[in-house]
């Protein structure tokens, strides 16, 4: 048997089409996989950074749950809880600090509306000016508010 009859009898065309498709599929998948190797390696080598980010994210969620506050308005309305969430940040600063440092820390910890909150603290006399651009935390008032 020969000619087109042979090709048709032995399913030659189907074999050729499927064969080419399999070879292409194999090499396309392999080329995609190897194009990702270096990305995966970069991810693996920076895994500590990513783990830290995940930890931070987890902490943030936990903090948020602790505070039980999801909206900035609530935070600003409840000055007692807001002050409690800022105390760990104040502990990280010197006794005398600049507002910008507190602001940056609050942002790093993803606390909502840091600018408004700090302004509110100043209005409530929780943050007292010391002069020359320095401020201090009014621990006494803070404790009183805690008790109240």
């Amino acid at each position, binding site marked *: 048997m*020969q000619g087109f009859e*042979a090709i048709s009898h032995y399913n*030659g065309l189907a074999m050729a089409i499927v064969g*080419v498709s399999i*070879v292409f*599929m*194999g*090499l396309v998948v392999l080329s995609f*996989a190897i194009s990702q190797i270096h990305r995966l*390696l970069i991810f693996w080598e920076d895994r500590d950074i990513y783990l830290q980010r995940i930890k931070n994210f987890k902490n943030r969620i936990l903090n948020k749950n602790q505070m039980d506050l999801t909206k900035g308005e609530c935070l600003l309305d409840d000055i007692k809880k807001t002050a409690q969430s800022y105390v760990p940040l104040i502990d990280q600063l010197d006794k005398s600090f600049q507002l910008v440092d507190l602001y940056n820390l609050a942002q790093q910890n993803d606390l909502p509306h840091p600018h408004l909150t700090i302004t509110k603290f100043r209005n409530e006399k929780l943050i007292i000016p010391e002069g020359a651009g320095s401020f201090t935390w009014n621990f006494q008032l803070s404790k009183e508010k805690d008790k109240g």
Partner: protein
Amino acid sequence: MEEVLQLFLKFGTNTGYYLASYKYIIMIIIGCVFIYLAIAKKYEPLLLLPIGFGILVGNVPFFKGFGLGIYEENSVFHYLYFGVRTGVYPSIVFLGLGAMTDFSSLLARPKLMLLGAAAQMGIFTTLLGALYLGFLPKEAGSIAIIGGADGPTSIFLTAKLAPHLIGPIAIAAYSYMALIPVIQPPIMRLLTTRKERLIRMSEPREVSKKERMIFPVIGVLLCCFLAPTALPLLGPLFLGNILKESGVVNRLANTASSAIIDTATIFLGFTVGASTQADVFLTPNSIKIFLLGACAFSIATASGVIFGKIMNLFSKEKINPLLGAAGVSAVPGSAREVHLVGQKEDPTNYLLMHAMACNASGVIGSAIAAGVLWSFMVNL
């Protein structure tokens, strides 16, 4: 005195001079041409020299029954030929090839792998051609794999599907690999414009050692899960590569890339050459196989180049379509030819490294194609 004369006469009838026919002379001339091409022209000497000499040895006429010929059981050559018949030598050659190959250029630019896939079109087009000419499916599959331009792969698949055709198919495959400088450049020039040949490839990114170590693991798993029948070729290929890239078994990598592949190449070439005994080799089918092989190789080259041009239609970063010709897996002959054709247009354009990426993917592609054909044909 009469007894002495009779003994001389009897001995005389057993000599090659007495038994020779024009067919043996033709084959011996072909063997001499191979040896000439290998030594004088330096066309693939590592392969053509053992094959050419094997053709001479295999075509010394002898009295059948002495246990001398490669097809006679218990002959020395028959034992050496075992490695061809069972596909052992091609696997060993692939081990050495893996240990010698640097896949960095492929890892740096994975999309060039598509050119290696496109060049396998030659295989499947020739499959149709061989069926058209009346070959049985298993024979057609074995002939088609010549389009992969990979000697060990051709021998491996033919040993599995149509062992009686090993001689002509191996000779055709290696002949065309040796004739790359003659066959490929006209096709490349015909299918590309000067502007396309002048395209410069950007510098590939640096590939880390870890990437090179991970590649063989991913390669063997992805390819062999898709086509398990490619395992006997791709398994050793990637094993050889991980031996090289791991850096912890340099002794093994060095042995695989030198002594082992050299030994296998000698026996592979020699026994394949010796298997071309005139009475088995000089048949009308051999001529058809040579014609189909030429078509397969040309179509493979053309497919790669055309696919390169098609890729340029869709990608922002243009690639030099000449690289498609290196998608056939004739390592490193076709890559070298692409580089030379590119340099003829612009002597400062270095395409070799990029062409090697296509070459490497061609090796993987033709092994997958062989596995696919084997699985298609095994139950026919």
